[in-house]
């Protein structure tokens, strides 16, 4: 008779240090491990994610948006869409939840060092790239020009508007925003995000990092490739259903890859064929 050793799926207890309401539907949870010993061992890379567990309700993958040097605090930007996120929205400072991670392959920050960096996001799901933007801003001298592009449907969909305004003040940083529909307080482009490419100059050694709906990433990548950005320099953060985060439950398969462990960040050259087919 043998008894199971400790499960790799066992979460650790974390506490909400701060809860920040970013927009009507997006909030950030700043978390810290209760076990200080464990907290000291915990490290992550920009672009990685944690599994957050809401007591009695369930576990979901959430990208880390804070800086690796910001530990012991770990920030997660969460959009209220489903059952678990709706429940998490009610958490307050001092509440506890479960966390296991970090998981997955993050952004290629080493490759981007001393190069130009173009960050493209669309829709509401920009959390995975925020970690990369924050990383660059904290280490501004290590990177060349930083360009941030974001497309939204409505001006009110723009998360972290104030941060975009701050980012635009940082040296050698350009911000390009587009909304499908305009509004009185929208000083930026009205129209498709891809129309912004004509306004910018892209150096060939630019590393591009994308996240957002697959359709939007497809059209942006087409523009990038036409503008002679190397496929090996284009990276995207993919989304699939994830329940285990360790390549076991099978839900996150994207062709031969498990998004949880082979991604979520993939080099475009690797997933080019898969990205072209619906329902993979």
């Amino acid at each position: 008779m043998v008894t199971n050793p400790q499960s790799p799926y066992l979460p650790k207890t974390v506490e909400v240090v701060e809860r920040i309401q970013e927009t009507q539907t997006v909030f950030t949870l700043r978390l810290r491990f209760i076990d200080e010993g464990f907290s000291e061992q915990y490290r992550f890379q920009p672009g990685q994610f944690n599994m957050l567990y809401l007591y009695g309700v369930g576990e979901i993958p959430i990208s880390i948006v804070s800086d690796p040097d910001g530990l012991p605090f770990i920030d997660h930007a969460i959009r209220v869409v489903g059952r678990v996120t709706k429940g998490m929205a009610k958490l307050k400072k001092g509440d506890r939840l479960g966390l296991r991670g970090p998981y997955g392959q993050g952004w290629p920050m080493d490759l981007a060092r001393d190069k130009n960096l173009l960050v493209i996001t669309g829709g509401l799901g920009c959390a995975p790239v925020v970690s990369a933007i924050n990383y660059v801003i904290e280490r501004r001298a290590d990177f060349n020009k930083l360009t941030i592009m974001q497309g939204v449907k409505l001006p009110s969909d723009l998360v972290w508007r104030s941060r975009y305004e701050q980012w635009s003040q940082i040296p050698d940083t350009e911000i390009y925003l587009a909304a499908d529909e305009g509004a009185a307080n929208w000083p930026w482009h009205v129209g498709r995000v891809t129309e912004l490419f004509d306004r910018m100059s892209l150096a060939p050694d630019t590393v591009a990092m994308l996240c957002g709906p697959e359709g939007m990433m497809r059209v942006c990548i087409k523009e990038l490739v036409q503008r002679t950005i190397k496929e090996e320099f284009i990276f995207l953060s993919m989304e699939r259903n994830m329940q285990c985060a360790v390549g076991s439950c099978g839900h996150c398969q994207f062709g031969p890859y498990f998004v949880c462990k082979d991604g979520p960040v993939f080099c475009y050259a690797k997933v080019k064929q898969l990205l072209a087919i619906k329902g993979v």
Partner: protein
Amino acid sequence: MDLYYLPRSGFSQLIDVLRNHAETIMVPKAQDGAMVFSELDPGEEIEAGWQEVQDAGRYSLEKTESPRWFKWATGPQALKPIVYPPREALWRVEKQGITFESVPESVPATAIIGVRACDLAALSLLDKHFLGSQFPDTAYKSRRDSLFIVAVDCARSAATCFCVSTGDGPSATQGFDIALSELEDGFVLRSGSARGESLLKGFSRANERQITLSEKQVDQAISMQTRQLPAQDLRSLINKSLESDAWEAIAARCLSCGNCTSVCPTCFCHSESALAELDGSSSTQYREWDSCFTQSHSYIHGIVIRSETATRYRQWFTHKLANWHEQYGRSGCVGCGRCISWCPVGIDITQEVATLNGN
């Protein structure tokens, strides 16, 4: 290789030595119209004569006069539910302080008699999946380590079997402790592990006649197989057919019910869910077998990536026959034919491959 012989009347000797190693002995039994593995009670004997007729969407048992115990080819399940139960607790959490703890599970040492070559091939794929990663599955490992496997070579193939074409049968070549070849009057035995060898040491050697008979049986099982998958790696065929009309044609028949994934000995998808006590004081996290044929399998924030049966069947088929190569170094199909027999509408994976291949 040393081959031993045990007359049928002396099989209890093997059971007795297995009892020294295992708390539980599992043997095939006819239950609810199918061969299933179930615990052998002390004094109980394996029932003789059962054999099955299988075809697309059909499985029926018949009792023959044969003294054989392993005349049947496959049942709906074999090792998968033993090493990877359909539903299991992963951990528990207390509301007080939100503290997490493992759910200890006592795993009895188990000997299982009657495992087929296809089941062993499937087990080695499950091993790669659950144990080969950066985060080995501890619960799977405990159950895996507790197994003592007595395999049996198939002397007969069902009409749905195609293990010859996948290279996985009909005789056991790896992954067992002891393998049997069943003759009318007894068994030719061989070991596949050091502990298997130590158990067989005391038995007498098989003679030429017994060895020849056992070899002939394997040839017979091979010749009985009518279905097959093409010998070549199917990756290029499948990857160039991802946008084929064939998937819609299959979807017209496919029920999206998930029976194929449930009986497949290599399908490993599972979902997780929280089950809280009604009073809210504690909650247990469970995992249970899931299927790529459900909507929830590909659900992300309001979107179902594979909302149509066509894309779901394509996912299953592509994963099994193409993507498994990338993930685990070989096809995920071991030729057991269960997905053919247990599909309520009799969809035949070998036929669908042939169709895709232009035949």
